[in-house]
């Protein structure tokens, strides 16, 4: 991807914005800042979210609709690409701003709606359908009687710090980031402070790793900075391999420069001249965004030799992970960067003393590094005001599953789980009772509704022997089958284990097999199957414990978490699967039974045609009948019947 060249004039302005003591005291700079922040726009401006979650909707159709409307109405308009506000269930989200007035956010928006919306707004009438709210910036006249977007139930209890610019700025434009104060911290750090001085701030901030372990960051920083070596590395772990999470991708796609600044500061503080961002190559847009951001940073001279005459030299490389969950583990990640199989190795030695190519390497989660600019700019005392004494700052979560408002949220540590699920997320999608939340994906644990008042706090979670995880939050309602989900998680582990050690490689496979036996039935039932099933259930926990205690790395050690916590919480459901051979959520394939409601069936014959097992008898215009012994429970008939005549049990 080529970088849009930045004009020399703009470059000068941007440098000034970064380096000037008080840019707002200089009228030209102030004006430049305001324009770049789009506090003032000259024409109708449409902001379109172009992050991956919108890829399913053809957002270029929205753009076309805008152009068409402008042509027809002889209006000049501009379309700006933005990141994601976080409210993914409202995608596609767009912002509309007319000169002088506050920006309005809408979602979900259909291309067909555009003309009507623009007609109305340009006439100063605000359509309220699908309105998220208005975003008021300095010098803008607010719309009357229109709620602020921050009052939207999804945003009202969030505390947006590292995500504050998400969905607001153009992520492909460095001037947006700089106009909002970006890179000033980095500049003043390398010009005015030594690494040691800044290290103190990190220490005092109490910053802890956001990848799940919650390890105190400063311990690693001091180790990495203190180990004598000719080379040091900073490694930004943006692999986000947890299949339930997408917050890191959204962060990169919405504000890549924040990540870069975090990395640059960390590198300066520990005295590294090389840094690497590792993100999965499947994250195409994220990769593009980083490449583009790196190009711009280099162009502005914020990377390279002797950065802005500070004497400091730094280069950041982007490496694309070729796809393996285990490569999120730091030693596996390092192996992968060295061109090897992504197998973890025994620790110690830890990467902070002997990491990439045997050199001291500071490995951090992307979210941890994103906190750094704020810690340095606002100071540890300010930083510590958010969160709890033990877990300072905010944490990102991605909400998915059966939740009503899906998306990426940022809340202070200590917020209760319920406040996130029921408050921000709006509870379950269909209003059905919630069952539990799976926090931390395939290495996480289930948390039942009864514990929803638990504060999201690292120490509290440790105390309760729970897993906060990297931030994926999956809500299950009573239509979801935890047994099935656990089986799928274990299947995932079976495929994603590096295959090095026996307990993880073979244990996951066997547990998965046992769970498959439990959650499906073959027809006709094999005579050993019941025996195998009972034997399996008794052996499963034992297997899980051995896996936990003997696996080499965190993947194998944590993989049994969903199983162990699920077996405790969903004992009854498990037993129903094992003994009654039913799945009350009617999710497990082949465990559902289907029958035709003779009253509703009008004999359309469609199910007869579609049943792959030829399990349905009946002729046109007569009531149909399902032969239970032949039916495998695939559910096809249920899907195709237009008369709701197929009943599921």
């Amino acid at each position, binding site marked *: 991807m080529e970088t849009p060249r930045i004009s020399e004039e703009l470059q000068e302005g941007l440098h000034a914005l970064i380096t000037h003591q008080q840019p707002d005291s200089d009228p030209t700079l102030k004006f430049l800042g305001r324009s770049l922040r789009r506090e003032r726009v000259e024409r109708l401006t449409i902001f379109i979210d172009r992050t991956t979650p919108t890829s399913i909707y053809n957002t270029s159709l929205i753009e076309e609709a805008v152009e068409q409307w402008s042509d027809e109405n002889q209006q000049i308009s501009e379309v700006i690409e933005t990141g994601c506000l976080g409210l993914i269930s409202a995608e596609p989200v767009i912002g509309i701003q007319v000169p002088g007035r506050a920006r309005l956010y809408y979602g979900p928006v259909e291309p067909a709606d555009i003309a009507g919306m623009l007609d109305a707004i340009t006439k100063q009438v605000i359509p309220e359908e699908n309105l998220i709210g208005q975003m008021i910036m300095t010098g803008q006249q607010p719309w009357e009687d229109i709620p602020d977007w921050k009052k939207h139930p999804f945003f009202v209890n969030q505390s947006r710090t590292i995500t504050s610019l998400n969905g607001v700025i153009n992520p492909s434009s460095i001037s947006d980031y700089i106009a909002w104060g970006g890179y000033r911290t980095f500049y003043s750090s390398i010009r005015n402070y030594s690494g040691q001085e800044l290290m103190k701030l990190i220490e005092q901030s109490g910053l802890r790793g956001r990848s799940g372990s919650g390890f105190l960051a400063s311990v690693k920083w001091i180790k990495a900075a203190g180990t004598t070596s000719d080379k040091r590395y900073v490694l930004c772990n943006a692999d986000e391999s947890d299949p*339930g999470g997408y917050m890191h991708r959204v962060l990169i796609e919405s504000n890549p420069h924040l990540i870069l600044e975090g990395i640059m500061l960390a590198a300066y503080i520990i005295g590294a001249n090389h840094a690497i961002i590792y993100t999965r190559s499947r994250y195409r847009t994220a990769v593009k965004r980083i490449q583009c951001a790196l190009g711009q940073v280099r162009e502005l001279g914020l990377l390279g030799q002797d950065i802005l005459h500070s004497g400091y030299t730094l280069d950041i490389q982007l490496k694309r992970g070729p796809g393996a969950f285990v490569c999120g583990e730091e030693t596996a990640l390092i192996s992968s960067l060295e061109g090897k199989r992504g197998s973890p190795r025994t620790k110690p030695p830890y990467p902070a003393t002997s990491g990439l190519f045997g050199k001291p390497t500071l490995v951090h989660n992307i979210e941890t590094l994103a906190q750094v600019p704020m810690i340095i700019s606002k100071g540890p005392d300010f930083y510590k005001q958010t969160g709890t004494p033990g877990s300072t700052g905010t944490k990102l979560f991605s909400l998915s599953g059966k939740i009503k408002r899906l998306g990426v949220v940022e809340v202070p540590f200590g917020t209760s789980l319920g406040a996130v699920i029921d408050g921000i997320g709006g509870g379950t999608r269909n209003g059905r009772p919630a069952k539990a939340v799976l926090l931390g994906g395939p290495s996480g644990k289930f948390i039942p509704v009864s514990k929803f008042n638990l504060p999201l706090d690292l120490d509290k979670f440790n105390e309760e022997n729970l897993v906060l995880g990297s931030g994926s939050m999956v809500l299950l309602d009573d239509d979801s089958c935890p047994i099935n989900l656990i089986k799928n998680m274990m299947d995932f582990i079976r495929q994603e284990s590096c295959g090095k050690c026996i307990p993880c490689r073979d244990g996951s496979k066997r547990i998965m097999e046992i769970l498959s036996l439990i959650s499906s039935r073959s027809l006709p039932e094999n005579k050993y199957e019941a025996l195998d099933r009972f034997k399996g259930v008794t052996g499963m926990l034992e297997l899980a414990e051995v896996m936990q205690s003997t696996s080499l790395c965190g993947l194998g050690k944590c993989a049994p978490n969903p199983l162990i916590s699920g077996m405790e919480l969903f004992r009854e459901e498990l037993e129903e699967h094992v003994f009654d051979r039913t799945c009350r959520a009617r999710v497990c394939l082949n465990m559902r039974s289907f029958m035709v409601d003779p009253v509703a069936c009008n004999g359309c014959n469609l199910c007869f045609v579609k049943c792959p097992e030829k399990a349905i008898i009946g002729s046109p215009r007569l009531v149909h009948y399902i032969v239970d012994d032949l039916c495998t429970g695939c559910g096809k008939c249920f899907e195709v019947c237009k008369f709701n005549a197929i009943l599921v049990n």
Partner: protein
Amino acid sequence: MSTEFVDLLKKYPAGRRENLIPILQELQDQHGYIPEPAVSAIAEYLEIPAVKIYSVATFYNEFRFNAGGKYHFQVCQGIGCQVDGSERIRSELHRLLEIEPGEITADGWFSLEWVPCLGVCQEAPVLSVNGELYAKMTPVRLKELVDKFRNR
């Protein structure tokens, strides 16, 4: 060394193993798969045994040694989709195409891959065919989709 890959290899310093994955990625991007002769060419250039290259390449999801099918199915493996029934989609695909992930049908038409969350969980379960996303899939719609491709 075969002249075929020289231009690509020359972009990287010789004998440096850490470039193995970027080289493989570039090959994969160019050809859609890793051509077999490339293995010995890389081995020679980076001075590592050929089997190591194969070993590394087969470790990661991204690399394949055969061209993908005409229609490449990528099915979301994310938890969001799982909670919304992606398993039914996966088992239906198994049934329809009779291949495992990473394989290709005998006629070369279809290939299959599980991929991480595609980022559109609100539309789960989703899958993508040759980069085009299909949302809210059901086994019936899937069969229709496959039939449509088959009849093209």
